[in-house]
C-alpha cells in the first residue's frame, strides 16, 4: 500500500493502482473516455490528465500512471481544465454534432464531458469524416464517422471476448476502427463493443430509436438464459423491456454479457406470448378464463390425489427457487407424487447424483473466482464456450491476463482452442469417461497422487476398479495418443492449482453422473478439491439448474425420472402430466416417442410463455410470466443466490408460475402454500442446506454465494470403449452460441444471427459426400430422419457431425434417442 495526496486529500491505494483508480476509490472523479475498468490501461484520449508535483507539474495521464509513495496529485487546476477543453475541442473537430439524431445522446461520454467542460465553441475547423456506415449486420450499426478512436471496442473484443473482430487500420488522419479487410462486421455478436462505446459510433440496431436512455427505468435482475447467472440491467419503458443496459459494476463479470444475454430479451414482449389461458374444447384449444382453466386443472389434481402414481410433473429449471419449492410442496408433499423431474432427467444427474454421491452435496465445490486464480484449466468439451459464454470470457481472461494454462479435452475444437498456447486433445465421441479414467490411471501409475487421496473414503475400491485399465489400450480406443494422455495427467497433477470445468445440458447426454464422478475422482486424487483456484465446476445448463438440484426437483423416493415419465405416458400408467416450462417435444430425446406419449396421456397441462409444440398438444395451457415479470431468486451454476426483480407488468393475462401454483395449491388443499415470494424464500432458507442464514431482503443486488459442505469419497466409475459403427458418421448434439434451451428461439436477436437448425460437418466429410456449405442434407438414424442445412467448417474432426438442439422446426431429437453419440448417415 502506498499513501499519496490527491487534491489535498490523503489517499491510500495498492501499489499496483493507477492514479485514476486511487482517485476513484477516494471519491474523486477524473474524466475518462478511453478507459474501462475491465480493460488494460490505454492512455489514448488524454482526458484524464492530472498534474503531479514531483513530475515538475507536468500533465500526465492518470489512467496509465501508477501511484508512488508521497505523490502529490492535482486533478482540477486551471491549466488542466484548459488542457481537457482542448482535448474535447480536438475530438469535436471530427465528431459530427448530430446529437439530436444520434441514438447515444443522453448516454454519451463525449456529450456529457462537453457539457461539463462548457465547450460551446470550437477554435478549430475541419471537414468531418466521410466513412460509409455499416448497416450490413442485423445487430450492430457501425458509424465510424462518430468514432473518437478510444479503441475500447477493439480492446474488449481482443482482451475479453478474444474474438478480434476490430482493429485500428490506416494511418494518420485516415486511421479508423476497421474489421476484417474493412468489410462488414461478421463476428459472434456479443455486443461488448456496443456496451463500451463512449459515443454513438456503435449502436444496437434492435434498440435503435426505440427510446432515450433517460426515459427508461433501469431494473437490475439476473439473466434468464444459462446457468452462469450473469446480472443484467433491463431498460424498461411503458411496461416493455426495450434493451439491456451495460453497468460495469454488476456481478463477477463486471456487466459483460454474451450474445443471448444482450440481444435475446425480445422474447419477453414477443407477440407470440400466450395472453389468456387455453382449454381444449371440441378438439381445439379455446381461450378461457383463469377460473375455468384452474378449475379444470385442480379437479384433475384432486382426482389424482388418491392415485399419486398416475400423476407426474416435468418442471423447468428456468423457474425461480420459490416456484420450484412450491412445485415440490404441491406435488411431493401435498399430492404425494414423486414423479417430478426436470431437464430430461439426464441433464441434472451430474449434480444430483454424481456430485451428491461423490461430494455429499449436489453442487460444484468451486466458485467462479477460482477460474482466474487457477494455474491450469482443464475443460471437458470445448462447447463450454457455447453453453456458458460469459464463463468463457472469464477463461479468456484467466489465460490471457493471468497466464493460466488451458487444456481442452473435447470431441471437437472450439473457440477456446484458439486461446494462446491452448492445448486441445480430441477424443472420439462418447469417450470422455475413458479419457478421464485414463488420466487418473496415469496419475496412479506414476505415483503423482496427492497424499490426502489415500485417506479419502472409497479410495482402494476405486483404485481396484482402475487396475484393469490399460492406458495404451484406452488411448487406442479414445483416439488420443497415450503420450498425450500422460502429458495431460502430469501437467494436471503437477499444477499447484488446477480447475476442471464440465458443462452439462440437454444437448450433452454423455455429461451425466458417471462423467461428473470421474472428474471429481480425478480432482480428489490430486488433492484439488477445497483449495482456492482448484477443484471442479459442474455447470448446470439453465438459469436455475443449480437451484433445481439444491431443491431436489427430481425423484427422491423411488418416483419416475423424466424419461420414465415419458415411457409411463406411452404405457398408460401416467394419466395426468403437468408440464411447467419444459418443452419435451423439442428438447427431450426421441421426438416421436415424446409426441406419442403426450398424445396418449389422458390429461396434459402445460404452463408456458409460448404455444410451444408441447403446449399445442395440451388439454389446458396456462400462460406464465417470463423472468422480467416476476420476483424471486435464481441460484447460478457458480453457487450465487441472486434476486430476480420484476421489471414489467405481466404480459396479457399471464400470471407468474408462483401465483399459478399457489392458486392450485389453494384449490387442492383449501389454503395457499405461501402468502408471498418472501415467505417462500424464508421456508427455503430454513429447509435447504446452504441457504440457511440467507434472507430475501439482504440478498441485495449482489446476491450471495451459498456455502457447500459434505464428505468427499471416491466412487468407482467404469468406462467402456466408445461405440463405433463403420461407414456412419457420429452425431453429437449440443448448444449453439446464440441459443439457450428452446426459449431463445422466441427472441429476435438470437434469431437474426442463428435463425435455423443446422448440422455442422468437417470439410473432408463434406467433400467426400459432395456437400457444400448451405446445402440441405438428409440425416438418417435408426430413430428417424431429418433434413437440415449443412454448415461446413474445420471445427469438427473427421467422421463427427454436430447439431444444436434448440429449434422446434427440424429438431435434432427426431434422429437422436438419448445416447451420447448417434450414428447417422448423411446424404443429399
Amino acid at each position, binding site marked *: 500500500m502506498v499513501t499519496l495526496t490527491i487534491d489535498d486529500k490523503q489517499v491510500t491505494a495498492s501499489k499496483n493502482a493507477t492514479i485514476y483508480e486511487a482517485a476513484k476509490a477516494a471519491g474523486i472523479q477524473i474524466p475518462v473516455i478511453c478507459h474501462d475498468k475491465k480493460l488494460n490501461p490505454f492512455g489514448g484520449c488524454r482526458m484524464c490528465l492530472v498534474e503531479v508535483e514531483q513530475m515538475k507539474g507536468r500533465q500526465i495521464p492518470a489512467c496509465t500512471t501508477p501511484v508512488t509513495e508521497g505523490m502529490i496529485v492535482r486533478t482540477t487546476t486551471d491549466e488542466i481544465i484548459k488542457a481537457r477543453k482542448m482535448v474535447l475541442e480536438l475530438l469535436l473537430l471530427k465528431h459530427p454534432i*448530430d*446529437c439530436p439524431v444520434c441514438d447515444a445522446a443522453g448516454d454519451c461520454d463525449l456529450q456529457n464531458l462537453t457539457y461539463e467542460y462548457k465547450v460551446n465553441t470550437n477554435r478549430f475547423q475541419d*471537414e468531418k469524416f466521410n466513412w460509409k456506415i455499416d448497416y450490413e449486420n442485423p445487430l450492430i450499426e457501425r458509424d465510424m464517422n462518430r468514432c473518437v478512436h478510444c479503441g475500447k471496442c477493439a480492446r474488449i473484443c481482443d482482451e475479453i471476448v478474444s474474438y478480434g473482430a476490430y482493429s485500428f487500420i490506416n494511418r494518420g488522419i485516415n486511421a479508423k476502427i476497421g474489421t476484417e479487410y474493412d468489410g462488414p462486421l461478421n463476428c459472434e455478436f456479443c455486443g461488448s463493443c456496443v456496451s463500451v462505446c463512449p459515443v454513438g459510433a456503435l449502436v444496437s440496431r434492435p434498440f435503435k430509436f426505440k427510446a432515450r436512455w433517460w426515459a427508461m427505468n433501469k431494473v437490475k435482475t439476473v439473466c434468464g438464459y444459462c446457468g452462469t447467472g450473469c446480472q443484467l440491467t433491463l431498460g424498461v419503458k411503458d411496461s416493455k423491456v426495450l434493451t439491456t443496459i451495460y453497468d460495469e459494476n454488476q456481478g463477477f463479470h463486471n456487466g459483460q454479457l454474451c450474445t443471448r444475454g444482450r440481444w435475446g430479451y425480445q422474447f419477453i414482449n414477443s407477440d407470440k406470448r400466450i395472453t389468456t389461458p387455453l382449454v381444449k374444447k371440441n378438439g381445439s384449444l379455446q381461450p378461457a378464463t383463469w377460473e375455468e382453466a384452474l378449475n379444470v386443472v385442480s379437479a384433475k389434481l384432486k382426482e389424482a390425489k388418491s392415485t399419486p402414481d398416475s400423476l407426474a410433473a416435468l418442471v423447468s429449471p428456468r423457474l425461480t427457487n420459490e416456484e420450484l419449492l412450491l412445485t415440490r410442496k404441491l406435488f411431493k408433499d401435498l399430492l404425494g407424487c414423486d414423479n417430478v423431474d426436470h431437464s430430461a432427467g439426464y441433464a441434472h444427474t451430474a449434480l444430483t447424483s454424481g456430485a451428491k454421491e461423490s461430494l455429499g452435496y449436489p453442487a460444484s465445490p468451486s466458485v467462479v473466482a477460482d477460474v482466474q486464480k487457477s494455474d491450469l484449466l482443464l475443460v471437458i468439451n470445448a462447447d463450454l464456450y457455447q453453453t456458458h459464454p460469459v464463463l468463457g470470457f472469464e477463461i479468456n481472461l484467466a489465460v490471457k491476463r493471468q497466464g493460466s494454462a488451458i487444456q481442452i479435452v473435447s470431441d471437437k475444437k472450439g473457440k477456446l482452442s484458439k486461446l494462446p498456447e491452448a492445448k486441445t486433445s480430441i477424443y472420439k465421441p462418447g469417450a470422455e469417461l475413458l479419457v478421464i479414467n485414463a488420466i487418473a490411471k496415469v496419475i496412479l501409475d506414476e505415483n503423482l497422487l496427492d497424499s490426502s487421496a489415500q485417506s479419502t473414503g472409497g479410495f482402494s475400491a476405486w483404485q481396484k476398479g482402475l487396475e484393469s485399465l490399460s492406458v495404451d489400450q484406452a488411448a487406442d480406443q479414445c483416439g488420443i495418443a497415450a503420450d498425450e494422455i500422460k502429458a495431460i495427467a502430469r501437467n494436471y497433477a503437477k499444477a499447484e492449482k488446477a480447475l476442471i470445468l464440465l458443462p452439462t445440458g440437454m444437448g450433452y447426454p454423455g455429461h451425466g453422473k458417471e462423467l461428473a464422478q470421474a472428474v471429481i475422482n480425478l480432482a480428489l486424487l490430486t488433492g484439488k478439491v477445497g483449495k482456492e483456484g482448484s477443484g471442479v465446476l459442474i455447470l448446470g445448463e439453465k438459469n436455475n439448474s443449480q437451484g433445481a438440484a439444491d431443491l431436489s426437483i427430481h425423484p427422491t423416493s423411488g418416483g419416475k425420472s423424466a424419461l420414465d415419465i415419458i415411457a409411463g405416458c406411452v404405457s398408460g400408467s401416467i394419466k395426468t402430466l403437468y408440464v411447467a416450462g419444459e418443452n419435451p417435444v423439442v428438447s427431450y430425446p426421441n421426438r416421436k416417442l415424446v409426441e406419442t406419449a403426450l398424445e396418449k396421456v389422458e390429461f396434459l397441462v402445460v404452463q408456458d410463455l409460448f404455444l410451444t409444440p408441447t403446449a399445442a398438444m395440451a388439454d389446458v395451457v396456462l400462460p406464465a410470466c417470463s423472468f422480467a415479470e416476476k420476483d424471486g431468486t435464481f441460484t447460478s451454476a457458480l453457487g450465487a443466490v441472486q434476486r430476480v426483480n420484476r421489471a414489467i407488468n405481466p404480459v396479457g393475462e399471464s400470471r407468474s408460475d408462483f401465483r399459478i401454483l399457489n392458486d392450485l395449491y389453494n384449490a387442492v388443499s383449501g389454503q395457499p402454500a405461501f402468502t408471498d415470494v418472501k415467505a417462500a424464500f424464508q421456508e427455503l432458507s430454513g429447509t435447504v442446506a446452504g441457504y440457511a442464514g440467507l434472507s430475501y431482503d439482504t440478498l441485495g443486488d449482489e446476491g450471495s454465494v451459498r456455502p457447500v459442505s459434505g464428505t468427499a469419497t471416491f466412487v468407482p466409475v467404469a468406462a467402456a470403449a466408445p461405440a463405433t459403427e463403420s461407414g456412419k458418421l457420429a452425431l453429437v448434439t449440443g448448444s449453439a452460441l446464440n441459443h439457450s434451451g428452446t426459449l431463445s428461439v422466441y427472441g429476435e436477436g438470437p434469431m437474426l444471427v442463428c435463425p435455423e437448425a443446422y448440422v455442422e460437418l468437417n470439410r473432408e466429410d463434406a467433400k467426400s459426400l459432395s456437400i457444400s456449405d448451405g446445402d440441405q442434407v438428409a440425416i438418417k438414424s435408426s430413430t428417424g430422419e431429418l433434413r437440415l442445412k449443412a454448415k461446413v467448417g474445420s471445427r469438427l474432426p473427421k467422421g463427427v457431425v454436430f447439431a444444436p438442439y434448440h429449434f422446434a422446426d427440424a429438431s435434432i431429437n427426431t434422429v437422436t434417442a438419448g445416447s451420447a453419440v448417434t450414428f447417422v448417415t448423411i446424404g443429399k
Partner: protein
Amino acid sequence: MRVINDITAILTGMWTTWKHIFRRPVTIQYPEEKRIPAPRFRARIILTRDPDGGERCVACYLCSAACPVDCISMQSAEADDGRRYAEWFRINFSRCIFCGLCAEACPTMAIQMTPDFEICKRDIMDLVYEKEDLLVNHGGKDPDYNFYRHAGIGVTQPRGSAATEDPPVDVRGLMP
C-alpha cells in the same frame, strides 16, 4: 362626526367611479373584438419545416424530456435517406402549461410557440394534437435554419460541404 366621515368616503369612491366612466375602456369585447398578442406570446405549439420543406423534428425526445408536465410523446424512426423523424408525435394540450421549455430545448428549432391561444374544445380528447395537427408548412421564427447543414452528417448535403466545414482533403495528395 361619523356622518361627515361616511359622506367623504362615499364621495371619494364615487369620484373614482365617475372619473373612469369618461375614460376609454381597457377591456375589449372578446370574442367580437380581438387583440393581437405579442409575436413571442407563448401559446399553441407547432412543428415547423426547414427551408427545403423537410420536417425539422428529428424526434430526439429532448422536448419530452424538458416538459415539466409530460405532455409530449413521440416515437422516432429512420427514413431511407438517413433522416431521423417522428413516426408519431403527440402533444396533449389539455395538460400543456405553455411554459415554452420544449421550444427552448429543441435543437433543430422544430418545435415553436405561436400566439394562437384560442384552443378550446368541447371534448377534452380533441386537445390531444397529433403530428398532422402540429405540422405547419413554414419555418416559423427562424425560417432559414436547417439543422442538417450544421450537424456534420451527410443527409442534406455531402459531408464536408456544410456551413462550418472545410471540403475534404486528399491527404495522400499532399505527399511530395
